């Protein structure tokens, strides 16, 4: 990385990158599905279990206090990482799927009525489509879509007729997992606020790669998945403006989220705790705290630069090899998730053959069937990059593609 530690140094922090697949070194190009974890994160989880494990917010004893402190410490780190005004605006969830369901249920079911409109985009991951369809079924609200251009950007030419005073919420991805496209959040948020709609952002792909300042963006709700940003699975969260979170209903009733329980009603804790029913993934959120420490030490600007460089290199090499690449080619408006077809080799055959060379890519619809349908393909191959990937690994990918081409020639 130009303004950070070099990639070879970073790679030493990731134990899994030392392993082989068969007799080949692992070339992990599926970070958009889940990132690998640095030793610092693995150690934080392990240290929590080895030395501080207890349930958070319950035990009136030393361990309980330590566990609570570690858990709340992680919340404070996430608040800092996303520029949130206060840790109470950070709700812990198991990831973006849960975050978007919480928005669609806790906010959507409470405030949406027949005649109201929800605006999403054809670029969304299923986790920002299906929760809204479920909310529509209950509320009678209408779900509308921002379409896509042929190069995989949001087609905003007709935004004025899609985003109206009937629109109550715009729920949009920050970066497409299937196309890599980065959406113009600032513009979308301003336009939505101008008609009185609130904005929820699925930052599953954006958060690992770009600095996000929720206050500067003036975004109302924003969810992330910890496991895509070097953290453990089942870590993640939802930022919300305090007044919006206050107004929302909890999704999960149960232990820890209540103040008092009576026979026929209960009172809820203040935010964020009213959304955190049941025992949370405590060690995992602590691990995510260590992950954002790690990312901050690298510097999110350096993370972004590295991604732009390797994505540029990969796009050039893939196009030169004759691959069909979906989504924008301009790295200033796209991230490092690169969907492609290599000649006529079906993505599943490609993934199997690449695996023989140690190369791990994703093949399928990427939980984005609307995108696949828009571009008339049932599936694509997808290579995605993160802080530990090198140009050499892109070369290994391209050489492996040639082998697949030979088999199917």
């Amino acid at each position, binding site marked *: 990385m130009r303004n950070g530690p070099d990639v070879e140094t970073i790679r030493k922090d990731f134990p899994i990158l030392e392993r082989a697949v068969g007799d080949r070194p692992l070339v992990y190009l599926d970070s958009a599905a889940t990132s690998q974890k640095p030793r610092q994160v693995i150690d934080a989880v392990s240290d929590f279990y080895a030395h501080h494990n207890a349930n958070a917010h319950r035990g009136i004893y030393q361990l309980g206090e330590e566990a609570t402190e570690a858990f709340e410490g992680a919340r404070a780190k996430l608040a800092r990482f996303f520029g949130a005004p206060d840790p109470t605006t950070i709700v812990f969830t198991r990831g973006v799927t849960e975050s978007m369901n919480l928005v669609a249920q806790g906010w959507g079911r409470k405030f949406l009525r027949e005649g109201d409109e929800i605006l999403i985009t054809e670029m969304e991951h299923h986790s920002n489509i299906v929760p809204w369809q479920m909310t529509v079924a209950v509320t009678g609200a209408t779900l509308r879509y921002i379409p896509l251009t042929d190069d995989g950007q949001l087609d905003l030419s007709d935004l004025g007729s899609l985003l109206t005073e009937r629109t109550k919420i715009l729920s949009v991805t920050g970066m497409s997992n299937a196309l890599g496209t980065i959406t113009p959040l600032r513009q979308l948020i301003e336009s939505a606020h101008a008609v009185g709609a609130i904005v929820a952002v699925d930052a599953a792909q954006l958060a690992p790669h770009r600095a996000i300042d929720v206050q500067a963006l003036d975004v109302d709700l924003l969810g992330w998945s910890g496991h895509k940003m070097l953290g453990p699975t089942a870590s993640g969260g939802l930022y919300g403006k305090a007044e919006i979170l206050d107004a929302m209903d909890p999704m999960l009733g149960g232990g820890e989220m209540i103040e008092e329980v009576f026979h026929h009603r209960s009172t809820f804790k203040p935010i964020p705790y009213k959304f955190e029913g049941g025992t949370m993934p405590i060690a995992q959120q602590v691990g995510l705290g260590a992950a954002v420490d790690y990312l901050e030490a690298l510097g999110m600007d350096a993370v972004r630069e590295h991604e732009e460089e390797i994505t540029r290199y990969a796009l050039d090499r893939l196009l030169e090899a004759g691959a069909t690449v979906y989504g924008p080619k301009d790295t200033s408006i796209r991230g490092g998730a690169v969907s492609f077809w290599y000649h006529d080799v*079906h*993505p*599943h*055959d490609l993934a*199997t053959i690449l695996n*023989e060379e140690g190369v791990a890519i994703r093949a*399928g619809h990427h939980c984005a069937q609307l995108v696949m349908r828009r571009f008339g*393909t*049932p599936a694509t191959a997808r290579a995605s990059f993160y802080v530990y990937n090198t140009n050499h690994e892109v070369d290994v990918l391209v050489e492996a593609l040639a082998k697949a081409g030979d088999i*199917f020639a």
Partner: protein
Amino acid sequence: MAVDELYKEIILDHYKSPRNKRELPGAALTGSGNNPLCGDEITVFANVEDGKVTELTYRGAGCSISQSSASMMTEAVQGQTVDEARELAGQFRSMMAGELDPDEATFGDLVALKGVVKYPIRIKCAVLAWDTLQEAFEGAPSGAASPA
């Protein structure tokens, strides 16, 4: 290289030059299935007379494993009785489960798909055509004439 055991010549041949890949207008039996994870799709068309599969064709799109399996299936099943075809489908599933190790004499080209067993995630691709055939047969009780 292990991958050569998967992508045998015969599989690639069926993939590139599929047999009986066409619609059968007015077919007595049809069945369709897909594998949403991969986007593999297969529709089979069959005519059955006196309990015997007289014609079997398919249409579809997907990976080489799913499509070659369908192509081989149409060749293997043509001329069999519905009961025999059902039994073959069962044997094919057993082969995919690693419980049966048939030889080429009894299994023909289908034996080439044995290599898929080592790629558990691809087994669904290989079995899709056979599931689809099963669905088509659901309208055809064994030994019965083709239903209306």
